């Protein structure tokens, strides 16, 4: 029954996606609509241009990908990326076991309950007595585990683990790289955070259903979709905001009149503000309740939607606009889902028939609910435009539509895109072009991207390699360029955290700052270097690299050859002479061979007896002069090559990954 149901949901999802895409793409952009890129005028060769394109619109070029893009044609490749319809069969194969990320939000809520919800269910089912809960006792934890198992429930951490794992795999392996890069961009722009327990469970579907399908569409559509998503409604508290001017819902008949304590909407406010709080509080203890502090206006979303999502902090709004916008958005909340935790609105629906609710202006759209009885019915004025009175749900839609089309928004959004894709300080001439397109094409993100990439500024030498990779981009870029086989994606995520980007856990609604200065500090930089060494030497569990295979199993003839070959493989179409020059002494350092060989001998004492004895011989008897001579003749290299090649190679590759050149894109 369960699987049947989930198949049904999948089918619905697929249909939805198909319709969604066809609506966007039918009769729209072909690659011929992408103008010829003006890289030649900026002095770039076609291959250099392809490498630049890949560095900005993918998580990093895979070996040979520069050739592929040149062969496809740069403009056509870009158009294909905008369409995001490249076959992804091998990725699908990798993701097939990730059941959690295929579920609907309601299924997720049911399968991955919050701990306090489990406790409440256990009390309800008399599995535990509310006086004997000892979360620090093993027996009690066993009881919880058994109960969850019996009821097909899984700890919510498993949901986040799967979600993060699939993200790492998707970024590393999808053929539709730009779609994933844009998903990151917009997720970060409309940031929500797993650190806020109440909204955490909604985040996997937020990325999948709200962000990813809309990344190339109209900005206004994306804004509206985020505004109505449970994750955002809870993260920025709008789900618990209600108006002073709200009219109570009129019941179907007098018998059904709700008691004061079940005032529609009030319960929901509690859900959002206090009961859903990472704890097991009030529902088991009928103690003096807090004043329903959610039952009032909450300005958080209204402020951030203007400051962070649309107009920007200097976008020309006042505190009064914030308050008025908050009033416009009262009543925007989440639709009750699951058996536990969302019961108040369910009660409301039992008391009032669907028709009755609709008649009163309630709007139910998927996971979104507009509760008319909590909406401030009075007149409001935001940025000089009047909303209401009694405009209901439509007021909010009109408000967001106005914000999406505001001049400040055009500037703010296009600048953020240019900072992401061009440089930390994009030239004004480029921004002007992008703003023009944003305005003329109704905020069409695809069109804005085309304008950006078709502008000479994008190809300017001051833009090429000017961006600093974020830790996620660095890690994913490294596994892509080394063709690594990822068996344990979470291991990469752990390294990404260590380098300073705990993806999905950024607490503030600003999202991660997109600038080099934020990513590069002493601790994080050392970890970038250590990451390179760990990855190349195979010391990240479940992330396997085969450096020999990368070079078609050609064994480099010398350390010098290895350095040159692998530098070019890892960083195609760049001037690496300085990097190579600086790394050469390392290879020629007589200690290197000793140390690397010693390590190899230590790791595999029996495997390479000859290497070990050579090593002893070198250390014990060969004078420095002799060693120098040997180095010059390359005989030393040759002698050591067979035994220590792999270790030496991984050392070289590790340093390249950690080098300053590789931190740039």
């Amino acid at each position, binding site marked *: 029954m369960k699987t049947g149901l989930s198949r049904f949901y999948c089918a619905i999802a697929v249909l939805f996606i198909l319709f969604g895409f066809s609506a966007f793409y039918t009769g729209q952009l072909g690659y011929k609509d992408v103008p010829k890129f003006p890289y030649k005028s900026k002095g770039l060769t076609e291959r250099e241009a392809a490498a630049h394109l890949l560095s900005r619109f993918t998580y990093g070029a895979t070996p040979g990908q520069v050739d592929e893009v040149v062969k496809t044609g740069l403009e056509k490749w870009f158009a294909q990326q905008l369409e995001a319809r490249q076959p992804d069969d091998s990725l699908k194969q990798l993701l097939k076991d990730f059941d959690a990320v295929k579920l609907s939000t309601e299924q997720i809520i049911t399968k991955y309950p919050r701990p306090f919800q489990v406790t409440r269910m256990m009390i309800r089912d008399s599995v535990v007595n*509310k*006086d004997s*809960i*000892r*979360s620090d006792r093993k027996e009690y934890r066993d009881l919880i585990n058994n109960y969850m198992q019996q009821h097909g429930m899984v700890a919510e951490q498993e949901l986040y683990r799967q979600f993060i794992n699939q993200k790492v795999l998707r970024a590393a392996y999808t053929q539709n790289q730009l779609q994933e890069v844009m998903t990151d961009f917009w997720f970060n722009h409309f940031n929500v955070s797993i650190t*806020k*327990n*109440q909204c955490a469970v909604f985040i996997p579907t937020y990325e999948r259903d709200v962000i990813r399908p809309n990344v190339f569409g109209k900005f206004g559509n994306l804004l509206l979709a985020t505004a109505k998503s449970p994750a955002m409604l809870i993260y*920025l*508290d709008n789900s618990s905001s209600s108006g002073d001017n709200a009219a109570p819902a009129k019941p179907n008949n007098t018998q059904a009149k709700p008691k004061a304590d079940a005032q529609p909407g009030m319960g929901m406010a509690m859900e959002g*503000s*206090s009961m859903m*709080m*990472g*704890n*097991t*509080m009030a529902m*088991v*203890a009928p*103690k*003096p*309740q*807090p004043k329903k*502090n959610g039952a009032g206006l909450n300005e958080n979303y209204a*402020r*951030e939607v203007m*400051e*962070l999502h649309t107009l920007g902090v200097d976008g020309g709004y006042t505190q009064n606009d914030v308050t008025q916008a908050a009033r416009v958005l009262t009543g925007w909340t989440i639709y009750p889902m699951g058996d536990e935790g969302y019961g108040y609105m369910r009660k409301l629906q039992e008391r009032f028939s669907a028709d009755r609710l609709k008649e009163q202006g309630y709007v139910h759209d998927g996971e979104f609910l507009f509760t008319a009885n909590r909406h401030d019915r009075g007149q409001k004025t935001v940025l000089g435009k009047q909303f209401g009175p009694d405009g209901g749900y439509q007021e909010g839609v009109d408000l967001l539509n106005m914000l999406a089309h505001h001049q400040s928004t055009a500037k703010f959004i296009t600048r953020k895109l240019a900072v992401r894709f061009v440089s930390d300080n994009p030239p004004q001439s480029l921004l002007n072009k992008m703003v023009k397109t944003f305005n003329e094409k109704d905020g069409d993100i695809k069109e804005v991207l085309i304008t950006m990439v078709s502008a000479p500024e994008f190809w300017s030498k001051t833009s090429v390699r000017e961006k*600093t990779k974020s830790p996620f981009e660095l890690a994913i870029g490294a596994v892509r360029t080394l063709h690594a086989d990822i068996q344990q994606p979470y291991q990469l995520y752990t390294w990404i*955290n*260590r380098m*300073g980007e705990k993806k999905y856990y950024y*607490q*503030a609604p*600003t999202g991660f700052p997109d600038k080099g200065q934020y990513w*590069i*500090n*002493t*601790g994080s*930089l*050392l970890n970038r*270097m*250590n990451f390179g*060494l760990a990855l190349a*030497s195979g010391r990240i569990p479940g992330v396997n690299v085969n450096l020999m295979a990368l070079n078609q199993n050609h064994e480099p003839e010398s350390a010098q050859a290895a350095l040159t070959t692998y530098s070019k493989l890892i960083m195609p179409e760049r001037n690496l002479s300085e*990097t190579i020059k*600086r790394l050469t*002494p*390392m290879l020629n350092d007589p200690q*290197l061979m000793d*140390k690397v060989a010693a*390590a190899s001998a230590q790791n595999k004492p029996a495997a390479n007896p000859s290497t070990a004895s050579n090593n002893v011989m070198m250390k014990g008897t060969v004078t420095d002069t002799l060693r120098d001579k040997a180095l010059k003749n390359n005989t030393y290299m040759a002698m050591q090559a067979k035994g220590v090649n792999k*270790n030496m190679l991984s*050392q070289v590759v*590790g*340093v390249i990954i*950690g*080098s*300053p*050149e590789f931190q740039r894109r």
Partner: protein
Amino acid sequence: MVSRRGFLRSGGLALMGVGLMGGIPGFLAEAVAGEQLINPYGKRKVLVCIFQRGAMDGLMAVTPFTDEYLKAARPNLFMSAAKTGTGASLIDLDGHYGLHPSMQAFEPMFREKRLGIVHGIGSPNNTRSHFDAQDYMESGTPFNKGTASGWLNRAVGLLGHDAITPFTAVSLTSAMPRSFYGDNPTVSISNLQDFAIQMRGNPGAANMAAKSFEDLYDKTSTGLLHDTGKESFDAVKMLQKADVKNYKPANNVVYPTSALGNSLKQIAQLIKMEVGMEVAFTESNGWDTHYSQGTDNGIFARNVGDLSSSMMAFWNDLSAYQDDVTVMTMTEFGRTVHQNGTGGTDHGRASCNFILGNNVNGGLVHGKMQPLANENLEDGRDLAVTTDFRSVFSEVADRQLKVTNNRVLFPDWKGEKIGVMRA
């Protein structure tokens, strides 16, 4: 500004080198005086902040034991200061407030007037969400979620000098705390030993790689990567010299083996290394005691025991550095006056905090608390917030770090100090 800071960083380090070689040449000394250059790596005044995540029950940590209303509201949780036959009793601080018996380590500090307590401290925003309350407390703007920076990051920006080192602001946490978000350089690290180029089981190769990296960052990069690369390797060398792995605390101090104890031990190491640290941050978890909170035994007792023992181990380890350090605890809110149905307490409003240091106006329980009759409770259930956390944070930061611009530190705050620090 970046380039100036970069110059000062490398310039400052060079000065230190010259200094070690025997005296600063006259022209440099003049430059130092003219530019008010100070040696970036040196002994500093340090503010150490400990965030108790989960909301500490301030009424159990420091109990107004003469309050009959509290006694009635907490039949299973209330402890008295009277020495009775069964169980431990509170440590009577002043005839009204009693310290939890598991915090006996704090008592001598309170008697010596080095430990101050503020009761009734909290946020003007009455959210009872952990997330929101922590967010507001750490950003320092209780009504604005979009504040990009944290208050401690802004404090770094107000230090009044440009001698910023990699260790100016250090968080001993695995991820950057909200308090540290922002444009001023801060670093988060869970273990100082990780501050090195590492190849497990192969120190020789690690040294080699470190040399290569150092050269690469020095010679093949510019700007941010170049400067940060230089700082990183300076930092690595400093830590190597200090041999952090084999650290021996002073006075035969033994730190608790808890996460907090371990973090504070590393903060003590950094202070003694004199690497220019001025702001340190760490956290303590497990304060969300909805169930079976216990009295002199149990979860809460273990938590406060760890907090006080870790802080006192730190304090005693500091020995000669005690004059330079102030430690302040904070928690997002307090807990309900009434115990709940599961032997615990739920989310409330005000809590208390601890401030330890030789400049603290100690030996006092600061703040106001009315008798806990229902009519005096906030929203009819919680200890009312009578002292805004920003009042205490700004006073401590000002006294300790000479961070005087409250408009920047706490933009919406213009309130008064309550005298938790000695003038």
